[in-house]
């Protein structure tokens, strides 16, 4: 069964879409709109490197070729995240992946999908700018904050899932399969809005002006994402996979959020493959400390069971998921509830940022110089 391709934005008021808010906008949606405007919907991301202040580095990404910095767009004062991707370190096919991600970003506009604001080339580096997500990703929080080492409590999980599933529903409505739904790609903004990122793995189910019935084949991130990937995606058989494989990943990600670690994590890749292909339910790797058991309520575990059903056709669609009591009840919760629930974790304080000092300038300029003294005659 394929989900509806019709435009969801016209069907229901579920979409607090930044540009196309319907007349049914609730109060919380209106404030949400106001708040998201400073995320970049209204600032012109300019493709000029001197328009950005670069602060400290916060990580690496993109096949290891990207340094990630906090940055600020000077003309508008908006804080951004700069991914400085060294294209010289990417193979041609990796570079094509990045190109597709940047293109896709420009064709997407939804409150719960994180995208790039703009990208441009300086020397051998690609400057790719994203809105700043002050809390980082859900995986970051679980890894770095002691209270969330063993996962989040159910109210937090249901807010996160609600946002992620509605972002996913948007992508599906456009014919896209995400293929790497996981806590690492759930980013939380200062306002408590959760966004789905990781568009590099997205693939379209519309090709040459027609719907594709099923997708086949792996992608560059298969091994990296194996814990979250659906059995039918891994099996590479004739029936292929489609939107429902994302729903399987939602189930795995829900378990990840509830326990602090993805099921199957740490097992050898081949064993994960085997377990999944045999239809084995997710294997929790973390030892529960007794108290944890009580935290996965029947509510949550019922939803997870539905999502990770080995038969893709029995999994619920994102629309159905949004209607489950787990996600539905909290639909009207104002976004800052998530902020309260995340305490003592607080969003990044941008007033305390330091401009990157040494090395950055040279890093920006530096080319992989294999200088040569050869002069052809």
């Amino acid at each position, binding site marked *: 069964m394929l989900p*509806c391709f*019709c435009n969801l934005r016209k069907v229901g008021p579920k979409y607090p879409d930044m540009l196309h808010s319907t007349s049914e906008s609730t109060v919380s949606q209106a404030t949400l709109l106001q708040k998201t405007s400073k995320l970049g919907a209204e600032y012109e991301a300019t*493709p000029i490197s001197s328009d950005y202040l670069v602060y400290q580095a916060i990580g690496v990404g993109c096949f290891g070729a990207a340094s990630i910095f906090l940055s600020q767009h000077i003309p508008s004062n908006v804080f951004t995240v700069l991914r400085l991707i060294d*294209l010289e370190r990417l193979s041609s096919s990796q570079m094509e992946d990045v190109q597709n991600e940047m293109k896709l970003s420009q064709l997407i506009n939804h409150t719960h999908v994180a995208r790039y604001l703009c990208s441009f*080339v300086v020397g051998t580096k690609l400057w790719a700018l994203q809105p700043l997500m002050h809390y980082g990703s859900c995986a970051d929080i679980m890894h770095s904050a002691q209270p969330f080492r063993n996962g989040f409590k159910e109210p937090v999980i249901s807010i996160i899932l609600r946002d992620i599933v509605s972002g996913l529903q948007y992508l599906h409505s456009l014919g896209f399969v995400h293929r790497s739904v996981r806590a690492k790609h759930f980013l939380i903004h200062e306002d408590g809005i959760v966004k789905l990122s990781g568009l590099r793995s997205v693939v379209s189910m519309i090709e040459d*002006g027609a719907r594709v019935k099923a997708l086949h084949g792996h992608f560059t991130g298969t091994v990296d994402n194996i814990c979250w990937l659906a059995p039918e995606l891994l099996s590479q058989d004739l029936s292929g996979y489609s939107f429902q494989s994302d729903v399987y990943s939602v189930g795995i990600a829900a378990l990840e959020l509830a326990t602090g670690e993805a099921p199957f994590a740490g097992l050898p890749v081949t064993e994960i493959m085997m377990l999944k292909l045999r239809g084995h339910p997710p294997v929790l790797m973390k030892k529960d400390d007794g108290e944890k058991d009580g935290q996965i309520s029947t509510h949550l575990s019922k939803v997870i069971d539905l999502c990770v059903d080995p038969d893709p056709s029995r999994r619920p669609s994102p629309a159905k998921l949004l209607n489950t009591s787990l996600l539905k009840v909290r639909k009207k919760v104002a976004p800052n509830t998530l902020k309260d629930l995340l305490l003592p974790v607080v969003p990044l304080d941008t007033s305390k940022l330091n401009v990157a000092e040494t090395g950055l300038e040279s890093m920006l300029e530096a080319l*992989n110089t294999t200088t*040569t003294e050869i002069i*052809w005659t």
Partner: protein
Amino acid sequence: MPLFKSSPKSPQELAKGLKEALGVLSSGGAKRAEKAAEEAAKILGQIKVMLYGSGDQEPQPELTAQLAQEFYNHDILLHLINNMAKLDFEAKKDLAQIFNNVLRRQIGTRCPTVEYLCSKFELVLKLIRGYENPEVALNCGMMLRECVRHEPLAKLILENGDFYLFFKFVELSTFDVASDAFAMFRDLLTRHKILCANFLETNYEKVFVDHYQKLLNSENYVTRRQSLKLLGELLLDRHNFTTMSLYINNPDNLKLMMKMLIDPSRNIQFEAFHVFKVFVANPNKSKPILDILLRNREKLTDFLTKFHTDRTEDQQFNDEKQYLIKQIREMQPAADTATATAEAAAV
């Protein structure tokens, strides 16, 4: 909420409604235009469902046929493209998908939409010009990509002067649009082998000397890397034999490749190697080419011996490198007669 779903509109009704909305959109005042854009977006959504189906529901062939007929009769695609910039964000994408679906229509061996577009070629030109407007560039790209799959349309685009605009578009400052334009450029020059070979051969001077050279010397790293890679692919494609012969007999091209062999970027060096090898492997080198290679014989063999020695996995590359070193070592100065014929061929 209505108790019963209103019955879906007929293709004729949809087309009529769309045409009216577009009429207001192109001429009406701001207030009315806003309303019309909303209406157009709604109808486009409905048309998309009709053409693509939804859920388990397959599209119905007779409805899509009727809809296409309405589109041709009332030039609706033309109106849509003309007003694209005024459509809202999601409606632009719906339009692109509708366009692509109508384009793939076939009746036996005929492609009626392709025939229609050949007769209304200004529409395709409009799509090409779309790259100049960031608001619609990628949407236009989605539609153009499908156009280029059809040989008659690809031929018209290549033969039209607007093709040369792509040399500008691939260097646009926004990475996403420039990337899309380059993918299109590559499609245009590689998809239909015989058409492309003929085009490159007949327009060799204009394409390679006047324009392609600039891409290879671009200040934009991505442009240089991609255009160099594409050049290698074009020259090594057997369909482009004549073009290759012309290219590898020009000493300026060899000099440029030797310069790129020692570029600071390893990727550029590597791509340049794949073009450089064609010059060396050519059994009928012209005298100017031979002279350059002979003049640099020692340096070249030395350079190639040390060139990308860490690529131990790539057997083909290493074989080719050894072959080139051997060729350059054993190279003999040209006999005068051979030179004369090779030079004649180069002119």
